[in-house]
């Protein structure tokens, strides 16, 4: 039984790389996306909206196939792990941009007005006034999204990434039936998601005291 657990644990680094890498790319790319989405320039707004709709509308597994078998073999050589991280990163950027947008909509209009009336330039208002407040209200939905991404990262096993799911299906096949590997996988995924849930709860409590 312990052997089985150790086999599955071998997939943890890839699972963490997929989730962490995809989330990091998404968190960074989501920033220009939400700024474009809220821009005064109609073209930028439409471009961001188009990208968000396409990125969210296509299932992650289809994205991974397109990137790994399309892009990854034609233009540049990509390993399955790289393709997985890029694919999940693109999808995440769309979702996170929408989470940030919700944060901007929750921002009191008077905050921008006060900073504007003080003569602060637009870039300063974004950097010192809006962004910190948007980020704070975005943390709980971002943590929820992170846990979702951890589970969605299992699709990367379909393009051959050696993550927890890959080792699980291999172990299940080797045992011909039996659901023990899946139980262990369930246990592992829960274990991985607990720190995120805890982090989110602590941060939320801490920040909520100031914002209200």
């Amino acid at each position: 039984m312990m052997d089985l657990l150790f086999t599955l644990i071998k997939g943890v680094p890839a699972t963490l790389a997929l989730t962490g890498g995809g989330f990091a790319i998404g968190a960074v790319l989501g920033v220009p996306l939400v700024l474009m989405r809220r821009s005064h320039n109609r073209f930028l707004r439409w471009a961001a909206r188009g990208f968000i709709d396409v990125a969210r509308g296509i299932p992650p597994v289809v994205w991974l196939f397109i990137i790994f078998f399309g892009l990854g073999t034609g233009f540049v050589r990509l390993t399955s792990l790289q393709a997985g991280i890029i694919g999940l990163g693109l999808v995440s950027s769309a979702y996170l941009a929408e989470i940030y947008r919700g944060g901007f909509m929750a921002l009191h209009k008077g905050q921008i007005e006060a900073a504007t009336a003080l003569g602060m330039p637009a870039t300063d208002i974004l950097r010192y006034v809006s962004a910190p407040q948007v980020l704070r209200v975005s943390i709980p939905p971002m943590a929820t999204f992170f846990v979702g991404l951890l589970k969605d990262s299992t699709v990367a096993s379909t393009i051959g990434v050696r993550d927890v799911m890959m080792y699980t299906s291999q172990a299940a096949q080797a045992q011909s039936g039996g659901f023990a590997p899946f139980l262990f996988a369930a246990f592992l995924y829960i274990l991985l998601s607990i720190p995120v849930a805890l982090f989110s709860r602590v941060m939320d409590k801490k920040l909520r005291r100031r914002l209200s």
Partner: protein
Amino acid sequence: MPDTDYIVRLKDINVQYGTYHAVRNVTLDIRKGEVVAIVGPSGAGKSTFLRTINMLEQPSSGSLQVGSFTFSLAQTLANEQLLQLRRSTGMVFQSFNLFPHMTVRRNISLPQMRVLGRSQLEADRRTMQLLERVHLADKADSYPARLSGGQQQRIAIARALAIDPEVMLFDEPTSALDPELGLEVLAVMRELAQDGMTMIVVTHEIAFAAEVADRLIVMAEGQILEEGVPSDVIRNPISPRTRKFFRAIVDRH
């Protein structure tokens, strides 16, 4: 040449939202050190008019002089001009609008550092002076959510003063406060007026206007109905609309 007798000159200001004419041909000249109170029924365009002075509201036509800057509002202003205009005016809002994620000290120091280029040390020193002026020096390290509405509004006044504006604009500064907390804000404003600050105050506090203002302006339907020495305007209003407005206030008390 800008006229040096006046610190704010507004000429033929119009604000239009689609077909709705919120401010109609309002002209107003304000002397340095003068305290002007603007009263009138809701929807009179008082706040909209006040907000054109620092261009939070874009007028459709008119011209505007603040300090040594003159702007024609027919064309859109360059970004640099807008920043300059806003640096010479300070504004206090009905809803305080302090930055909730910053301490009181940072709320007042940050604009000085970003807008005037002061160092942290210089800014913090000025911040403490201002906090003493509004009698809240002991709250420098608190977050706004921990303070009462009256305290928040006094800090908002300190923040607006921090960029050394030539004129202070107050947009119903006590309307969101219960009467007692309103009094402490009015006390700070009274001191400010005594120190010679030029102030334009949109308010429903007629008693305060009568006592502190040099001039009272009554607005309704986007126009100035009447203006003059507060006691005269309140005692002998000329237009029937003004008379009706003051009667409603008197009947309440």
